[in-house]
């Protein structure tokens, strides 16, 4: 991530692993070469998806992976589609963010 002068700019993400400007070049290349497609999720969508997985499966995902869970609902899958989501990390490290969200939502 950079400005018009090529200076590195501060990114923002609720997840520490995505809050890093150097994360970009590899993904930018995969996107440009059309080997991968990219979608986004808001903080709220991400947190909701994380709580949903926790409730349904008893798995607390890391906030990075929760972004992937959050876009699942935006797709219309056929019954026999195979969907793989990488839960790349565990949510223990994100407890502070989860507890804050629970406080805000009275969960």
């Amino acid at each position, binding site marked *: 991530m950079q400005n018009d002068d*090529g*200076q*590195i700019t501060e990114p923002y993400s609720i997840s520490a692993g995505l809050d890093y400007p150097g994360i970009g070049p590899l993904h930018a290349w995969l996107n440009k070469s059309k080997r991968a497609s990219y979608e986004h999720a808001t903080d709220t969508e991400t947190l909701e998806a994380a709580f949903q997985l926790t409730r349904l499966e008893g798995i607390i995902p890391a906030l990075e992976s929760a972004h992937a869970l959050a876009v699942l609902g935006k797709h219309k899958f056929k019954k026999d589609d195979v969907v793989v989501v990488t839960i790349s990390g565990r949510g223990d490290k994100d407890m502070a963010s989860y507890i804050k969200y629970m406080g805000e939502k009275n969960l």
Partner: protein
Amino acid sequence: MNRINKLFQTRKGKILSIYFTAGYPSIDSTVEILKALEAAGADMVEIGMPFSDPVADGPVIQNSSQQALNNGMSVKLLFRQLENIREQVNIPLLLMGYLNPVVHFGINEFCMKCEEVGIDGVILPDLPADVFVEEYSYDFKRHNLHNIFLITPRTTESRIHEIDKLSDGFIYMVSSASTTGARDSFSAKDVEYFSRISKMRLNNNCLVGFGVSNKKTFSQVCDYTSGAIIGSAFVKMLNEKGTGSKGIKNFIDAIRQ
């Protein structure tokens, strides 16, 4: 002929090159500092292009870079400031900075602009030699621009020879495996490194940078190499005493006397 080559042809040894960050301490100080440096007897100047993530720099140049960016310095603005510099300054001028702003500006456009305003060389510590050869050397060459390569105490002998083959102008000898920053003196181990490189009898002249700050460190490196580059100590002086030509003259005299 490129002004850097001319300098090394006419002056053998004790070459003093000064680095400062463009846009520091104030946005409009670039030309004023360049003129004062030439008048004070500096042989060459490296104009720093400030970057948000200056990984090779210590605190003094880091701070000056951040301040310069806060002041509004950019590659584009720097070229605008340097538009008529060759009517006022004759010594070799180099741009030093990091790769990303240059790539973002466009390599060919950057080299073209350098030639237009009269820049003789570029130093980009985070540009790997093989990438330069494969992707950028063509544009540099056709705009009569030297890319200055860096070596450190950890660079292997075979790589130093390789870099010597690729180099034109001079080789930038980083004094230690560290970031930029003034030191009071060099250790016996540092001197051993200067001596080791000197005995390699490279085709290119070597200038030592990183850590050179005063008369003592300058003469220590001049025993083995063609001269030195002083950055942090000069930037610190600008911060303390301002950009007046008298302060700049005193700084250069103190190193040369």
